[in-house]
């Protein structure tokens, strides 16, 4: 029919591998599960690349790339019109996401062969990785918003399982719990958003919802709640769902803790794929946002902008290298959200949309590279903390070079890919709102600074006391590093504006030197300061930190958001709601029920004396009663 039927295999292969490995993995040698998983993911990767090539370069009509639905089956009929379907939707962004997910996932599968070697639960790890890949692929291929929600939840649970992979470690358990509950809270918003949206439109299907000429919003205008239109409510709530997964402020708190998971997991889930699901969601619903709820889009822009600044500031003060990267991820996700928020629809107007997707793509490559590099470092020195590292460039040349490439990319140094995508975002922000643009300029500088702070601390400076001499990682780990480094370098040259655009029609972009040159300069300034402060061991950073005092402390403690989270969950929910509820139930409601029983018992105790056991008392009562009855009947009748 459409020639794309095979795409259904892309998610199904990981699912099959999950089931097989999950059920039988314990009985095999660990390596078997690893190789099976990797082979399966490799197949999916190849299929995705083939799909992308034939989709993007198979030509397109006047109207741009049209969506293709090779498969769609009804999964559940809710009402006459609301059907939940399971299917595959191919359009520019889903095809792009296919490539991103399978590439990073494949690399992580290979990398983990080395990184996780000898770990207990190796098979379990690969099973979960496959489960995650399946869910994530299902999410991006969703043909309707409910299918997306279904896979959204599955992605959340695979993330829960993988963060808590070292389940004997209490901190990992707590982190996985936190991640799940925070995102679950956001998902509630998503769910209510879907409910409102489906109530208004009577459909879940994207091809009806995201069609700019859609007629399904007919009744929307008249509905509202608290002075805000129903569509704005719906889209803000859906965005909350996206913000939860993409860890936007103030739902970001789970992401840094999620670094308790194994590093390849952080690379795959918490850097490259799952956390961009929120961005993807907004992108997928973009026409609805743009045409029906522009106010909600403004919210998206500001939340994104604020998160990018907020996270960048925190990243400067962290010492755990994975946490620095986590906050950097937050910051970059903020960029993508912001780009979507400032975008218009169609052609040049849709620059922000294109830029966001472009950045999503490049970010996936270089951030996965950074995480895998960090994993390689952690593998070598057995610590997550910068102050346990130093001078590693001598011992780990491949890691060093690839890490440097990634740092330069994220700092936006041309001609690496980060430069191109970030530049487009800045242009889009500039066209929309100057304050947001200013924030992003600042963030660009901060990004370069904290990345190179990390880089210099780890690879330069003097050697620490290592348990054993750090060594370069095995080939299984360095090949993915090199592959991703190459991708990071060259991804910028992909003609994104001709492939992935808001209305699926290609347009031309040009270099805006007025914006690009200062942004590069700001990046370089950031790098320069980092070089100044961290190239050699010095007291200056500590002195600066001391100078800022409380501010530094607040930043170091991530502005106490974790404490607020703990306060809300432990104190409010646990102590102030749940405990009184439990007490109320036991003592008031149950007390009432028991009280009924007690009253009965007490009454019976009071009147049981009448059963004296004296036969003649009974006889007397009987006769007296009979007489009384007879007399009263005689009297009254």
């Amino acid at each position, binding site marked *: 029919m459409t020639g794309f039927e095979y795409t259904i295999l892309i998610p199904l292969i990981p699912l099959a591998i999950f089931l097989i490995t999950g059920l039988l993995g314990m009985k095999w040698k660990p390596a078997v599960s690893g190789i099976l998983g990797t082979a399966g993911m490799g197949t999916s990767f190849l299929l995705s690349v083939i799909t992308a090539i034939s989709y993007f370069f198979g030509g397109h009509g006047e109207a741009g790339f049209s969506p293709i639905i090779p498969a769609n089956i*009804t*999964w*559940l*009929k*809710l*009402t006459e019109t*609301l059907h*939940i379907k399971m299917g595959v939707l191919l359009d520019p962004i889903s095809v792009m996401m296919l490539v991103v997910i399978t590439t990073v996932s494949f690399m992580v599968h290979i990398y983990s062969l080395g990184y996780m070697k000898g770990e207990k639960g190796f098979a379990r790890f690969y099973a979960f990785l496959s489960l995650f890949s399946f869910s994530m692929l299902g999410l991006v291929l969703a043909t309707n918003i*409910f299918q997306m929600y*279904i*896979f959204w*939840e*599955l992605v959340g*649970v695979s993330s829960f399982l993988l963060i*808590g992979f070292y*389940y*004997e*470690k*209490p901190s990992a*358990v*707590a982190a996985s*719990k936190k991640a*799940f*509950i925070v995102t*679950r*809270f956001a*998902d*509630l918003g998503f*769910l*209510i958003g879907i*409910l*409102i949206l*489906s*109530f208004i439109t009577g459909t879940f299907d994207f091809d009806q919802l995201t069609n700019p000429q859609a007629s399904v919003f007919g009744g929307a205008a008249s509905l509202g709640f608290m002075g805000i239109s129903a569509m704005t409510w719906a889209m803000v709530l859906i965005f909350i769902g996206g913000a939860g997964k993409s860890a936007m402020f103030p739902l970001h708190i789970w992401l840094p803790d999620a670094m308790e998971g194994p590093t390849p997991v952080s690379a795959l889930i918490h850097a490259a794929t799952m956390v961009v699901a929120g961005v993807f969601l907004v992108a997928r619903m973009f026409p609805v946002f743009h045409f029906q709820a522009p106010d909600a889009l403004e919210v998206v822009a500001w939340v994104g902008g604020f998160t990018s600044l907020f996270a960048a500031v925190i990243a400067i003060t962290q010492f755990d290298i994975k946490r620095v990267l986590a906050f950097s991820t937050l910051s970059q996700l903020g960029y993508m959200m912001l780009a979507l928020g400032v975008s218009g629809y169609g052609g040049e107007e849709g620059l922000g949309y294109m830029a966001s997707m472009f950045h999503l793509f490049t970010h996936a490559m270089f951030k996965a590279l950074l995480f895998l590099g960090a994993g390689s470092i952690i593998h070598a020195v057995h610590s997550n903390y910068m102050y346990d590292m130093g001078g590693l460039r001598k011992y780990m040349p491949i890691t060093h070079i690839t890490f440097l490439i990634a740092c330069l990319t994220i700092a936006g140094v041309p001609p690496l890919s980060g430069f191109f995508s970030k530049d487009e975002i800045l242009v889009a922000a500039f066209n929309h709102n100057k304050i947001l643009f200013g924030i992003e300029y600042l963030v660009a500088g901060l990004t370069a600074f904290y990345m190179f702070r990390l880089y210099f601390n780890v690879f330069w400076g003097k050697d620490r006391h290592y348990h054993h001499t750090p060594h370069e990682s095995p080939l299984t780990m360095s090949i993915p590093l090199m592959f991703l480094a190459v991708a990071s370098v060259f991804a910028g040259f992909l003609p994104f504006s001709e492939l992935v655009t808001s209305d699926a029609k290609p347009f031309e972009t040009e270099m805006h030197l007025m914006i690009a040159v200062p942004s590069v300069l700001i990046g370089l300034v950031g790098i320069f300061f980092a070089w100044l402060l961290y190239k050699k061991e010095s007291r200056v950073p500590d002195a600066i930190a001391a100078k800022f005092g409380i501010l530094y402390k607040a930043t170091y403690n991530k502005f106490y958001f974790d404490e607020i989270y703990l306060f809300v*969950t432990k104190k409010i*929910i*646990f102590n102030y*709601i*749940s*405990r009184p*509820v*439990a007490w109320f*139930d036991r003592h008031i*409601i*149950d007390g*009432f*029920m*028991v009280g009924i*029983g007690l009253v009965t018992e007490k009454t019976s105790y009071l009147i049981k004396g009448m059963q004296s056991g004296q036969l003649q008392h009974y006889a007397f009562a009987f006769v007296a009663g009979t007489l009384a009855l007879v007399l009263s009947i005689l009297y009254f009748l």
Partner: protein
Amino acid sequence: MNILSLFVVVPVLTIVGILFTKDFKGARVVSAIGMSIQLVLAAALILMYLGARKAGVTDEMLWTADYTWFKSLNIHYAIGVDGIAVAMIGLTAIVVFAGIFASWEVEYLSREFFISLILLATGVFGFFISLDLFTMFLFYELAVIPMYLLIGVWGSGPKEASAMKLTLMLMGGSALLMVGLFGLYYNSAPDGGSLTWNILEIAKIKIPVEAQRFFFPFTFIGFGILGALFPFHTWSPDGHASAPTAVSMLHAGVLMKLGGYGCFRVAMFLMPEAANEMAWIFIILTTISVVYGAFGAIWQKDLKFINAYSSVSHCGLVIFALLMMNQTAMDGAILQMISHGLMTALFFALIGMIYGRTHTRNITEMGGLMKVIPFLAVVYMIAGFASLGLPGLSGFVAEMTVFVGSFQHQDTFHRVVTIIAASSIVITAVYILRVVGMILLGPVKDPHHLELTDAKWFERLSTITLVLSVAAIGIAPLWLSDMIQASLEPIVAKLTVFNPF
């Protein structure tokens, strides 16, 4: 013989069979055989039902039969099933089957134990196939009363007190129910003619509205007590905590469904005007119980208490959705009954198995069980995920159907309470993950637990049956949902004719 009567006859024959056995080994084998036959019958019934519908049989009830057994009051043994009853029979058969294997090692008075258990099951099966209110009530009582013995004799903890509390509260419900049913009977011929107990015949006439107003609360609350309607739910934590494993399974898994089933099949179906008038009261009560049960569960330390409160929350959602009175929401309610029945039975089975090993149900005394008893721990996690509504497991399908259905209501009040009820999915996640985190993950807390052994074959059989059912509904819900929706049509039609909204 009518296939439906077999569902009562097979358990009775099993009971007779148990009488001839000598020791606990014989008793459990006979019970297992009997209930396996029952399971096969149920599967056959579902297939036959689907086949009949596919062949275009449009009767409201299939395989009807009618024998008078008490002429002067016109009481019949009238049976027949629609898709909903078929689904509930399937649920019961699965849970009873799993329950028998979960109590494989009951040695104390085991013949009596299995007899009571199967007697209870007989009552439940009879209830679901009955079309005659009196016979239905008879089976209902037959299901409730063995519970007293089962908890009082084979239970744990303050078993006598719990058994009495549970039975008395349920009997209180029965008393209300009886008033309601008599009310229906004496109003079943408002224009003269002979009175009837038959549901289908009562459904054809219109009970006078005054009578409905009076008798609806009796009937609804009477069934609602068994369905853990707030504030009449407090028998549930105590009863479940003291009950032996299989009894908890059957009770939470099946008996509580009798309440929900009765609520719509009798109270709402036969008294639609009153149901529409009074729905808002019960909607508020059930909204409270959905959220309240979930919050209540967070604080508990006893695994069974947690599950009992979670049942209050989930069963609250059943009645909540029923009262929304549209096809989707009611479909969700039935799905939720089935889903909750399966997963809560699974939970109680697992809690029993864990308790049998660790001799504690206090979650603060356990930890790291994943390492020592991986099979049970993984299944517990699956049950937990089902409970918090993970897609691919049955809870998700049911909850989403409920929420989408309820939200389709044109009235703002209903949509607002839907959002409140939907917030329970977060709270559920909190208590489920708290339990999972405390008892399964983390380091092993008690060194004695390191020597625990994992599930035996009968425990695996019991839990895997339930897990497979939960997953089957979660992955392919369409056939079940379609079957239920088709059967709901006459009920919804009757309810919406009088719908004032």
